[in-house]
């Protein structure tokens, strides 16, 4: 088997793995019943799914001779930004109480999403009065 054949098969395997994890992520999104649990499914697609699809793309571009490493940058940017969107979604879920009761903290601390600011209370009073 020549090098290019090995590369082609490797790229195919990477594509299959990536597609399989994307399917599992989609199944998880449909099957799980709680918003917080559902958030776990996209993190799999975002890391393994996209990661191995892009690896397949890198491998095939080296096989064809036009080496391309842009995919590594895409991966890096995805890995840096994905946790932030997941964090925002979970903050919204906590804010709307769409999840189990969050655990209490000692030392007069609370979760930053649940902090009641004075401005908020004033604004609430105003809307209630009007």
């Amino acid at each position, binding site marked *: 088997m020549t090098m290019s054949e090995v590369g082609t098969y490797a790229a195919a395997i990477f594509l299959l793995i990536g597609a399989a*994890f994307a399917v*599992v992520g989609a*199944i*998880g999104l449909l*099957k*799980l*019943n*709680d918003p*917080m*649990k559902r*958030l*776990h*499914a996209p*993190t*799999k697609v975002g*890391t*393994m799914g996209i*990661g191995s699809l892009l690896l397949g793309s890198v491998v095939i571009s080296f096989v064809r001779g036009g080496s*391309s*490493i*842009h995919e*590594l*940058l895409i991966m890096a940017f995805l*890995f*840096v930004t*994905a*946790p*932030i969107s*997941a*964090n925002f979604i*979970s*903050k919204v*879920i*906590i804010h709307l109480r769409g*999840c*189990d009761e*969050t*655990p209490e*903290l000692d*030392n007069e*601390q*609370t*979760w*930053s*999403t649940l*902090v009641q600011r004075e401005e908020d209370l004033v604004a609430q009073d105003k809307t209630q009065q009007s």
Partner: protein
Amino acid sequence: MKRFFNWLFPHPFLTLLLAVVWILLQNEFSAGMAVFGLILGVIIPRGLAVWWPDRPVGFRLGKMAVYICIVIWDILVANVQVAWIVLSKRNKDMQSAWVVVPLDLRQPEAITVLAGTITLTPGTVTADLSNKGHYLLVHALHAPDPDAVRDDIKSRYEARLKEIFV
């Protein structure tokens, strides 16, 4: 001289990172592009320095590289485990739980990296930070023993991050 250096390069590693990213974006290496990348790497951190005054003092690049390798390995392993949980377990058998992780880390940069790591490894998502920044709220998809998850995060990631950001 040292003050001038600190003024020009508020975040030396950010300068390096921006230059490398710029060269990677070009997809082929040439001297002109490297110089332009370095120029960008000087201008952007200098312009942003106002909004990022408390830079981390010590940052160990070598240990960070080891840490990244460990995290990538964990992502691979955890992905397979979580895929199996999603496919095989019924919803009512899944014991999802909140895990409270008390933090020893105090630098915002280190906490950000820890929170990002927890979210990237499938099966755990960082949901929130306490208002004084001393606890992380983590949601675990299937954790029969939440304390084990907490200890795992503390010993595997936080202990290493404490050595990276000194």
